[in-house]
């Protein structure tokens, strides 16, 4: 036990040192710059959602940004330095929560500590929170906490707290909304209990959205729900790199069509996975499956989405998380070195030779190709185990699952068609 705690504390300390380097050498650029502009708008009494494309996320983090901006003025320091404190703090809490969760799952202290460190020392989480300054780790922390409370409801109010915390997570970033149905069908609970979970989650989100909706109803909805993502990662990145060979153009002309087609395919696939998860006590595995399906099928991905699956994979002690992290590291390096070296290396970014250097495109291509292959294989591996549940279903559920499987496969046809067209045009 003592040894495990020593390992845990040492790992966190080393991670803080590495993260410190990225934070201290960072610049106020990219998303962090947008966060500062958003905070300034709110502090000026304006709804940040009226400036389209500035802030495509739900509103809760806006308050964190505004508080950070106020404190920045008070302390006379840089905004980019302080705003990165929150996601990195969340990473530390995730590590501690993972350790506690694994111990509850009867994992021995030392292996539990080592598995937990796989998160905090993971280059992907370090790059996302410390270099890029994205706050997906806060969302992951609340999601894992919600799962924990529902899995180990040692006190009665934990059952009420779990949906509220999930609602808070969705109010930071919308991605846990795609796993909400899994929470609803999880376990052997009565219908009123499931309905209460849904209502409490929605109520939390509603309360947080309300002031912004009252100010500018349309602008708020368009900013949050009109955002479909960018084709920076996954197979769209592979296609972008292939397209780049034609004449050094790094925007994929068919990106919007691909996002539209892949969104439908993902929704149908996710509905199928929810049915396969219904009534089973495999909440973590089901959440992981939905996220892996998203990363495999949907084409509008950003770099920071990679961290969503890490805590879930660690909780399952699935060794695929190591292969995933390895592939994601190469994909991240390729992405940042080519598109945004200033986000990765801060004030030292000029050592890369500047923006859009062709020499980094192969790293972006092979990194993302490897990441997509690993993600797809991981998905298939878990799905294979989950498919055994299928035999136990009643006939109507079986029929529905089969119908959704067919629809999902049909919805993949336009995605595959567009993909093949892009490959053909890029390689002729």
């Amino acid at each position, binding site marked *: 036990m003592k040894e495990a705690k020593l390992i845990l504390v040492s790992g966190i300390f080393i991670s803080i040192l590495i993260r410190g380097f990225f934070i201290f050498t960072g610049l106020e650029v990219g998303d962090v710059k947008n966060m500062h502009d958003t905070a300034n708008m709110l502090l000026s009494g304006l709804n940040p959602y009226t400036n389209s494309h500035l802030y495509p996320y739900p509103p809760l983090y806006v308050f964190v940004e505004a508080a950070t901006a106020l404190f920045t003025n008070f302390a006379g320091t840089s905004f980019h330095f302080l705003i990165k404190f929150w996601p990195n703090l969340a990473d530390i809490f995730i590590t501690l929560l993972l350790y506690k969760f694994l111990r509850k799952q009867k994992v021995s202290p030392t292996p539990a500590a080592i598995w937990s460190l796989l998160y905090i020392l993971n280059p992907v989480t370090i790059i996302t929170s410390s270099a890029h300054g994205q706050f997906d780790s806060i969302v992951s922390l609340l999601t894992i906490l919600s799962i924990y409370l529902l899995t180990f409801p040692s006190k009665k109010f934990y059952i009420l707290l779990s949906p509220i915390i999930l609602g808070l997570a969705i109010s930071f970033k919308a991605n846990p909304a795609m796993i909400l149905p899994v929470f609803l069908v999880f376990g052997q609970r009565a219908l009123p209990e499931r309905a209460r979970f849904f209502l409490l989650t929605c109520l939390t989100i509603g309360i947080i959205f309300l002031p912004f909706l009252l100010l500018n109803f349309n602008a708020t909805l368009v900013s949050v729900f009109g955002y479909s993502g960018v084709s920076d990662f996954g197979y769209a990145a592979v296609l972008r790199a*292939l397209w780049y*060979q034609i*004449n*050094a*153009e790094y925007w994929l002309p068919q990106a919007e069509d691909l996002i539209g087609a892949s969104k439908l395919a993902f929704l149908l696939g996710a509905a199928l996975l929810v049915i396969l998860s219904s009534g089973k006590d495999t909440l973590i595995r089901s959440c992981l499956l939905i996220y892996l399906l998203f990363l495999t099928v949907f084409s509008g991905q950003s770099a920071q989405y990679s961290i969503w699956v890490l805590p879930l994979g660690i909780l399952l002690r699935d060794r695929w998380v190591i292969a995933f992290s390895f592939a994601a590291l190469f994909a991240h390096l390729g992405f940042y070195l080519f598109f945004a070296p200033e986000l990765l290396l801060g004030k030292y970014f000029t050592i890369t030779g500047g923006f859009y250097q062709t020499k980094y495109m*192969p790293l972006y291509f092979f990194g993302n190709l490897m990441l997509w292959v690993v993600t797809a294989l991981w998905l298939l591996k878990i799905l294979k185990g989950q498919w055994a549940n299928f035999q136990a279903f009643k006939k109507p559920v079986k029929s529905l699952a089969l119908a959704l499987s067919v629809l999902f496969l049909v919805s993949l046809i336009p995605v595959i068609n567009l993909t093949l067209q892009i490959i053909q045009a890029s390689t002729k």
Partner: protein
Amino acid sequence: MGFTKYESVNGNSLLYPFKRFREKIFRVPDQELFDTRFNELIYIANKKKTGFLEESVSRYISISGILMQNKKSSVSEKAKQNIKILEKLRDGYPANSLPWIQIQKTVDTTRRLQ
């Protein structure tokens, strides 16, 4: 003529860094590199892949500079042939356009090899 065929891997290819790595590992002679860079430049200019032209031009000028420093008289005849082809390529673009200027740079550099 100085140009016989395109290179199988050119500056626009995702496999290009592997080609450059192989050249460094096997210490390919400068004269051979000069021909390779020239062939790559022809491919990029002929296929109108102007987004890669600046890098191809830089690489060609770089190896030309190395040959100039080493005073390789054997490239003089090759340089003459290259100039003829480069001038033809240059004239495929509107006068004083960016690609025209970039190819003109290679003509000027190659002249110094004669």
